[in-house]
């Protein structure tokens, strides 16, 4: 299957005074088209660091990150922003909808940033909201929506630019059980439409939706679960 994003021997270290914190050990993994990949691990294991590397919001200390055949090492802030805008859709744990804008306007934002006309952005945003069955609430401000509804709007925002890679950071952590199923099913469907969907979670119940699982523990990423993980 076609590789959409890959990390190759990529590691991340943070320096705090004289202390060096290794957030992610050298890691190599691919994220492929039509796959929903779960990145599973406990809190502080390094899974969000891996997601941040894939999301081009941080650079690896060593190694390489490639998104849609473009190496991101050495790119400037503007180029990185462009890579994110054109190739990646983000879904955040706390939804991160822009509070002053209604659902439709939130979904229109990435398109407007891409330079699309307002009219075109509106049409595409309405389509994206229909896909997540939020067309009836698109004129509501985020504060008027439930957690599950906000996350669906966030998914619509992430997919409206038709990105190759969708990165979801704990997308179900703030949701009730019913909403978890709805959101994960949406993401699963999206992964079958030519996208690569990467979902960071520490919720092992989401395994049922995964095509592939990457386990992250103490900064080490592997496709082989530890004994404890294998038991779940």
């Amino acid at each position, binding site marked *: 299957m076609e590789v959409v994003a890959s990390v190759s021997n990529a590691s991340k270290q943070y320096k705090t005074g004289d202390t060096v914190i290794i957030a992610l050990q050298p890691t190599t993994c691919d994220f492929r088209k039509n796959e929903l990949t779960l990145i599973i691990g406990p809190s502080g294991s390094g899974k*969000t660091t891996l*997601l*941040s590397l894939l*999301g081009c*919001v*941080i650079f690896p200390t060593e190694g390489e990150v490639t998104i849609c055949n473009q190496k991101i090492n050495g790119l400037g*802030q*503007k180029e990185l*922003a*462009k890579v*994110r*805008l*054109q190739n990646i859709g*983000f879904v*955040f*744990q*706390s939804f*991160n*909808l*822009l*509070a*002053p*804008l209604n659902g439709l*306007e939130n979904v229109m*934002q*990435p398109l*407007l*940033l*891409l330079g699309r006309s307002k009219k075109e952005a509106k049409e595409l945003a309405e389509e994206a909201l229909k896909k997540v069955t939020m067309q009836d609430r698109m004129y509501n401000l985020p504060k008027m929506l439930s957690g599950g509804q906000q996350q669906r709007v966030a998914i619509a*925002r992430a997919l409206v630019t038709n990105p190759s890679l969708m990165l979801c*950071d704990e997308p179900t952590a703030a949701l009730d059980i019913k909403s978890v199923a709805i959101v994960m099913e949406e993401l699963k469907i999206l992964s079958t439409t030519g996208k690569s969907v990467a979902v960071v979670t520490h919720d092992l119940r989401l395994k049922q939706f995964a095509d592939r699982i990457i386990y992250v523990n103490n900064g080490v990423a592997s496709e082989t679960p530890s004994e404890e993980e294998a038991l779940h």
Partner: protein
Amino acid sequence: MLSTAFKFIKYDKSKSIGVIIGIVISIFLIGQQIGILGFLTGLMGGIIENSNTDVGQIWVVDNITQNANELAKLDERIVQEIRSIEGVENTYAVIATGGIVKFKDGKTAPVTLIGSESPVFAGGPNPKKIVNGNINDLNLDGAISAETLDESIFNNSVALNTRVEINGKEAFIRLQTKNARSFAGTIFYTTLSKARYFGNYPDTKVNAVAVKVKNGYTINEVVENINSKIYGVKAWNAKELKEKTIAFITVSSNIGTSFGTLIVFAIISGFFIIGLTLYSSALDRIRDYGTLKAIGATNGYVRNLILLQSFIFAIIGFTIALLLIIGFKTGVAAAGLIITYSPIELFSFFLITVFISVGGSFFAIKKINNVEPASVFRG
């Protein structure tokens, strides 16, 4: 982006109102202070401003005078002497003397009597400031002019043909002026001889000589000629004497410092009130700006979004402040305080508004520039 900026402003109503109030207070105070300062400087230069400067292009006064409101006495013969100087077309004596006006109801007030030769009336009033009557009517027995805006000071009507007494001598108001006032107080214009009569002013003295320049000569040439040939006096280009008078009073009375300090503090306080409110507003929205960056907005886009909000604040704040300034101007005009703003002054107010508003957003922009897109992954 404009629509997004408006939404951000609308969403955070309390802070947006705070910023706008900050701008309005700051710009209204600046406008008010500049307006009053303009009014006062207008009064300072009033003696020259209200004279007939088409005729009195040059004013010759004693050589130590720097304030046209305090003219020392000169020998009257100097009027003829100056007339003989190269480049001088004609000379006109001007006297400024004090008096007490008494109205029919017994109320009194101090006045300055400006007398100059008929029919030219080089000392004033300026024909543009006459609102009622004919300047030649000042030749009638006991005729004087009076200022309509001073009615509130006199608490008496200054209608034409009103009988008054000046220093106990009968006088009649035959001409009305509007906004022909001076820093020294109320001015009554009349002929040279009547000013001497009312003010008990000696026939052998004058306070100034107004000079008309002959065709083919420049004002500065004639000023130099007079200054080089006559000892004990100083010839001024009328405009320069007015400016010197304004500068002298503004500095010596500390009016300039006082108003300048108020204006500077209004700008500084506005800058910081707006800056801190925008900063606080940006902190409230830091998650939104971080999200925008994470989904692909550049620092430039986010900076422009904040700048656009501050520019919208500037336009709204300026509009409200301008309406308040116009209201203030209209309100005080009824009390005789005539304030005028030139288009340049109004444009300057707008520039100051943009400066304090957009400048105030500097703190917010700095903060938001430092927000890492990665921060949105941290819950």
